[in-house]
């Protein structure tokens, strides 16, 4: 395991494991995920749908759906304090003020019967004992920051388009200028033109407020544009992590290579893109060897010998969970 994890990191996840139960079977959503985040840094969590990205995000704010969670293990440290062991009062203090979240689907993320301004002011008022007027002023200030005129502050979510709603969600998340912002696929539900606007907005606010951010996405383009560090997740495990340059310049783990191979390349046209064969593994079963074995083009006997829960360092800060790392170039 990376041993040189320094204490100065703002937000650190250590060996996080989350299991759900559905009907009679147990779903292994996240198994032994670890990463850390420095102040002002942006980490990209990349992976296919169902790889457990959203579970990690929701676990860190402890807003997993009560009725279906089976077990949560490991530690999530914020300034050295483990969120999983926090009592309700500490948890409430943390949410919104220190860590806040942007949700994927703006259409349902806002309360349809409350005005936009009141939903933002409510969050701010919770953490800063102030009068309602002050909270409203802050809310209008945030709305203007995300490009929504003050005249529309008293309107209801259904009067806004998808893109506008996402801006409101962003304003809501950043109302108390949190230290860590978790963005769970903020632009997936939006069309491309709006996507670019929202991403610029997030980047601008991040630089302005100096918030550290965990960006969850399955779009490598967004990662290249926004993130400093990247972790690639497959079947609930980080299979490769490192700086953006490490991952984009020399992807090491076969799955990461597969991801890049599947991308259309502008320079040369290819009759057919090379997808990764097979389907993501069934999360309700646990596999003895590397999860990517069945789909990996380089699978061989050595894979069975490889200790699945260890990662090998390719270069300082760049790790890959595959025995072929560093042995010889793919």
């Amino acid at each position, binding site marked *: 395991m990376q041993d040189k994890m320094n204490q100065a990191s703002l937000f650190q996840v250590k060996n996080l494991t989350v*299991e*759900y*139960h*559905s*009907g*009679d*079977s*147990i779903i292994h959503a996240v198994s032994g995920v670890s990463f850390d985040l420095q102040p002002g840094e942006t980490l990209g969590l990349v992976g296919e749908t169902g790889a457990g990205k959203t579970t990690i995000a929701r676990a860190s704010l*402890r807003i*997993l759906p*009560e*009725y*279906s*969670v*089976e*077990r*949560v*293990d490991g530690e999530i440290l914020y300034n050295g304090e483990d969120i*999983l*062991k926090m009592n309700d009062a500490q948890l409430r203090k943390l949410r919104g003020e220190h860590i806040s979240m942007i949700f994927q689907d703006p259409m349902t993320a806002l309360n349809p019967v409350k005005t936009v301004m009141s939903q933002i002011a409510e969050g701010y008022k919770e953490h800063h004992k102030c009068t309602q007027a002050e909270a409203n002023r802050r809310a209008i200030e945030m709305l203007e920051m995300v490009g929504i005129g003050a005249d529309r502050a008293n309107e209801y979510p259904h009067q806004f388009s998808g893109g506008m709603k996402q801006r409101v969600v962003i304003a809501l998340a950043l109302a108390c200028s949190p230290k860590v912002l978790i963005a769970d696929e903020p632009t997936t539900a939006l069309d491309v033109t709006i996507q670019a606007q929202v991403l610029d907005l997030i980047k601008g606010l991040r630089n302005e407020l100096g918030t550290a951010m965990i960006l969850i996405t399955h779009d490598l383009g967004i990662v290249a544009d926004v993130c400093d560090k990247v972790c690639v997740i497959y079947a609930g495990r980080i299979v490769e992590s490192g700086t953006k340059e490490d991952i984009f310049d020399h992807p090491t783990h076969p799955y990461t290579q597969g991801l890049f191979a599947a991308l259309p390349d502008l320079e040369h046209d290819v009759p057919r893109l090379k997808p990764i064969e097979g389907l993501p*593994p*069934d999360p*309700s*079963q*646990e*596999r*003895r*060897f590397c*999860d990517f*074995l*069945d789909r990996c*083009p*380089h*699978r*061989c*006997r050595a*894979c*069975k010998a490889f200790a699945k829960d260890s990662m090998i360092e390719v270069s300082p800060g760049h790790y890959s969970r595959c025995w072929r790392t560093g042995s010889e170039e793919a």
Partner: protein
Amino acid sequence: MPEEILNEIVEPQERDHDHERNGKHGHGKRGHGHRHGKPKESVKPGSLKYVWRSVSHNKGAVAGMVMLAAIVILCVLSPYICRYGYADFNITEWYQTPNWNHLLGTDQMGRDLLSRVLYGARYTLVIGITATAMSAVLGILLGAVAGYFGGFVDSCVMRFLDLFQAFPTLVLAMAFCAVFGTGVDKCILALGITGIPGFARLMRANILRIANMEYIEAARTINCPTWKTILRHIIPNSVSPVIVEIAMTISRNGLTSSSLSFLGLGVQAPKPEWGAMLSEARSYIRDYPHMVIVPGLFIVITVLSFNLIGDAFRDALDPTLKD
């Protein structure tokens, strides 16, 4: 090509011992008791098999079914197992409280309450079921037509249903009994008619939900005739919510028929229908309470079991309760 290397599945028992369990820490709730590794063949939620499986798990529903089965069996066997006929009349033994000779006591005419109640079950069940069947059939047709054609037809059917709903069911049933007279068949007709709006609304809502689904448009594109679409696609898909409504309507009919007898309409006295027995015995409630409690209890048990079954089916269907 790399030789055939395949992954292996780790059995959960084997896996359990190497991870210590920390239930407290994980704020999740304990999962279901038994877990077996073998994957279950996935059953389409909403299909009857899926509904049946979750209903059979529901303890309330099982209790309801057992009670119902017991009552039906006793009712069918009553002429043979009871010592007295339901109309055997012996004035010297009137007002007896439950004793060995008459397990549930006797009424003001000395008739054995046990045999009357068991025999009477057939009236309440027959009335409940046939009336519900009638309102189900008529209601579904009306709802299907209103939902599928929409527009003018829909709004005028809906206005008609509002009209129906405006009248308290009891007043409507009473007007009906007044028009066509009292008796079992008239009671069934009255309850049947008053049950129609419930089914029609349910069916219409179902149709509207399913109609805008893609596969209905698909069926239309291959010019499959309207009636075929309704029969093949729409009605099978709304079977489950209809079952819930059927269970609820049967239990409601049981109550309404007893209220009708209370007002002197509905089923007439010599026939030992529970509602009639209950309303006839209400003036003895203070001196011989057993005459009121016995039929009342049986009504509660039957209506309760139908309700429990209906609830179980509703929970099985209700997507929001999936965990």
